[in-house]
């Protein structure tokens, strides 16, 4: 059941992004930027956490989940340290994703060459 929920919610988020791209004719980078920002806003409104509760990876793997994780990390540290928590908490929460992107991204770019 967890797989079905992840599939449906993850698919739904991608479908919205695709619809937004086709209807506005914006380029993919602008849609991706809008999606992470929207995720942060939805997280602030308290709407994203329930989605993660229901869909698990279906909500955290799409880019809006990245914005949500940032906000969650900031608020977690802010609960303890106030303003300084916003400085320390955000990147701590997304560290695994960011570090992996740098590390594996670099590794693969060095190891492989473009095809065709």
């Amino acid at each position, binding site marked *: 059941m*967890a797989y079905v929920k*992840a*599939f449906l919610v*993850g*698919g739904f*988020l*991608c*479908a919205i*992004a*695709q*619809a937004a*791209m*086709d209807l506005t004719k914006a380029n*993919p*980078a602008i*849609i*991706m*930027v809008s999606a*992470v*920002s929207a*995720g*942060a806003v939805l*997280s*602030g409104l308290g709407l994203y956490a329930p989605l993660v509760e229901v869909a*698990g*990876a*279906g909500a*955290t*793997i*799409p*880019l809006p*989940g*990245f*914005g949500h994780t*940032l*906000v969650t990390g*900031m*608020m977690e540290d*802010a609960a303890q340290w*106030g*303003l300084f928590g*916003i400085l320390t908490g*955000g990147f701590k929460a997304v560290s*695994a*994703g*960011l570090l*992996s*992107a740098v590390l*594996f*991204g*670099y590794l*693969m*770019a*060095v*190891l*492989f*060459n*473009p*095809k*065709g």
Partner: protein
Amino acid sequence: MTKANIREQEAYSVFLEDFRPKRPTFRNIVVAFFTGGMICAVGQGVLSYLLSGSMPEKQAYALTSSVMVFLGAFLTGLGVYDKLGIFAGMGAALPITGLANSVVSPAMEYKREGFVLGVGARMFQVAGPVIVYATLAATIVSLIKLYVF
């Protein structure tokens, strides 16, 4: 250019419109739904596996995105993910595997310009803006939550 000329050109572009392929919006949305859904189901598989051990939830979520980034980067290296991107659009770009793809693809392409200004600089051609705006949005949201509510 005379008025007649302009009118002729307009007529021609209207005539061309019939031959231009229509943007298959419905098809794109359906394909994005199924592709994005499948990628998230794979992520859920990783997450469920990690949670079935003794890993705390927070670590399991973080490690899941790490595994997905690895998969996205690796499949881009193999030349598979770019094809998926052309096929599925946002279905391939929106999951975090797509962010990994946006890192590896230009870095690989610009390798011939060197490892600093080629690979190093181009890695974040798309992921850079994503991180910048995610950080700005999250900071503003958190400030509002902290001081207004």
